[in-house]
């Protein structure tokens, strides 16, 4: 359904990881580039510590149905998130999981998704940037590395709009880290 310019992203994880903010930042970057977006999230007490979901649709054209129905990219930052919101993927869906907190599920293979990218996101963030904050921005870097959905500089601008000055440097490094992780996979010849 829809058209080729429509990009659908679903991010799921634990409330507090900043996935909703991440989707808003990417949405704003897309708007800066003249695209149209719809951003939504699961709403309720779950979003504060429980399992959460953020969705973003980006298109060059008017977006009629605003929710994700056939994701191009599903990013699961917790096992529970993947369980609860991992349905509805197809062979067009790239799946990214954080292998430092969950193992790759057997259910995902070439038959039912476009590819599974298991990256140790949280552990790499902690070891490289000595931070537990910024997971959402590392993930944005990974999404950017995989899709180049917006210009990196636009993404930096959008991040700066939402981040306090003293954390700006950390967040820019987090973005770079995410993109690096994708590049490293590509260099290793892993099909992504």
């Amino acid at each position, binding site marked *: *359904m*829809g058209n080729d310019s429509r990009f659908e992203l679903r991010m799921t994880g634990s409330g507090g990881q900043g996935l909703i903010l991440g989707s*808003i930042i990417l*949405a*704003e970057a897309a*708007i*800066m*580039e*003249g695209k*149209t*977006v*719809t*951003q*939504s*999230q*699961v*709403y*309720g007490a779950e979003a504060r510590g429980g399992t959460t979901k953020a969705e973003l649709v980006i298109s060059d054209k008017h*977006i*009629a*149905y*605003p*929710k994700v*129905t056939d994701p191009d990219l599903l990013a699961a930052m917790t096992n529970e998130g993947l369980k609860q919101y991992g349905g509805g993927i197809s062979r067009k869906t790239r799946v990214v999981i954080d292998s430092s907190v969950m193992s790759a599920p057997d259910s995902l293979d070439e038959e039912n998704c476009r590819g599974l990218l298991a990256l140790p996101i949280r552990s790499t963030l902690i070891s490289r940037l000595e931070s537990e904050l910024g997971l959402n921005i590392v993930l944005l870097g990974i999404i950017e590395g995989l899709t180049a959905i917006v210009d990196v500089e636009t993404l930096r601008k959008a991040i700066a709009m939402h981040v306090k000055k003293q954390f700006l440097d950390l967040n820019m490094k987090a973005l770079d880290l995410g993109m690096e992780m994708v590049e490293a996979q590509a260099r290793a010849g892993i099909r992504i």
Partner: protein
Amino acid sequence: MSEKMVLMQGNEAVAEGAIAAGVRFYAGYPITPSSEVAETMAKRMPEVGGTFIQMEDEIASIMAIVGASLAGKKVLTATSGPGFSLMQEGLGYACMVEAPIVILDSMRYGPSTGMATKVSQMDLMQTRWGTHGDHWVIVLSPSSVEESYQLTIRAVNLAEKYRNPVIVLSDETISHLREPIDISIPPVLVERRLPTAKADYLPYRTDESLVPTVANVGTGFRTSCTGLVHGESGFQTANGHVAEALVERLRDKLFNNLDDIIQFETDRVEDADVLFMSFGITARGVSEAVETLRSHGRKAGSLRFITLFPFDDDRVRKAAGNARTIVVPELNSGQLVLLVKRVFGDSRKVVPMNKINGDLISPQEILNFLREENL
């Protein structure tokens, strides 16, 4: 489009639309999924010289905005089903004293407290018949963030113009959806008509517009407002002729102006053999389904109600083209479909499509429904 576009949530757009329309008084009691309206107004009212009050409940909230409206302010409150139920008494009072007020009802799943964070379209008939007695309200239905902004402006203008309650009927999905919107163009504002001379002033006397020029409280006019039947003086009476004339006027002040009040959006109705009639968020799934059906050669069309009430059968009939089959998808057990059936009787095949599990109707579900029902 990028320069002027800002990413905004549906509820924020309602608040900003109200402010752009001149609302300077908000009283409310927060309730999911409308709470961001209160949150935004709490921050923004002091910035624009307005007043924000968090009331003790929804009855107090609506009575506070009625009072502020009678004192001359443009006003808003926001709620959801459970709070809207409490507001019904005040809504009827506002109809009777002809106080211009705007209420946002962001529909969640009911009945009762239902599911606070799940979407529904179950309050449609409550907007029309929630309060007792013959009465008329204007109900507008946004289906996007942009329209949440624009229709809130329109709601304030219509409330002022006709001195009548206007309900903006949104839902959990639109309330929490974020979309880019352009709020850079200042809207055209409508101001209520006021009395010019104190001599012979009667608050509820009207000219051919049938809209009274009630003075704002505190401007030196002697005005009585009551929920009891009243004549031009505003004082109560049990005279049946006065009562009949009053209730007829409350109807006619809107029904004489349906061209001004009623709006639809139609898409390829002219040659459609299957027509969808929907409102609010459901219309967005319809829109995509129509696109897909057309790309497969199926003559599908859509009529979206922007104004839900007043509901004028003749206008709906004329706007509906000649489609043999009319499908009415909605997130309730069948409310809009009652009106559509009233319009068409047995002259068309009117098919309800209902979903009541707290999720939206997706475009694919609409396509599947047509196939399963052989439509």
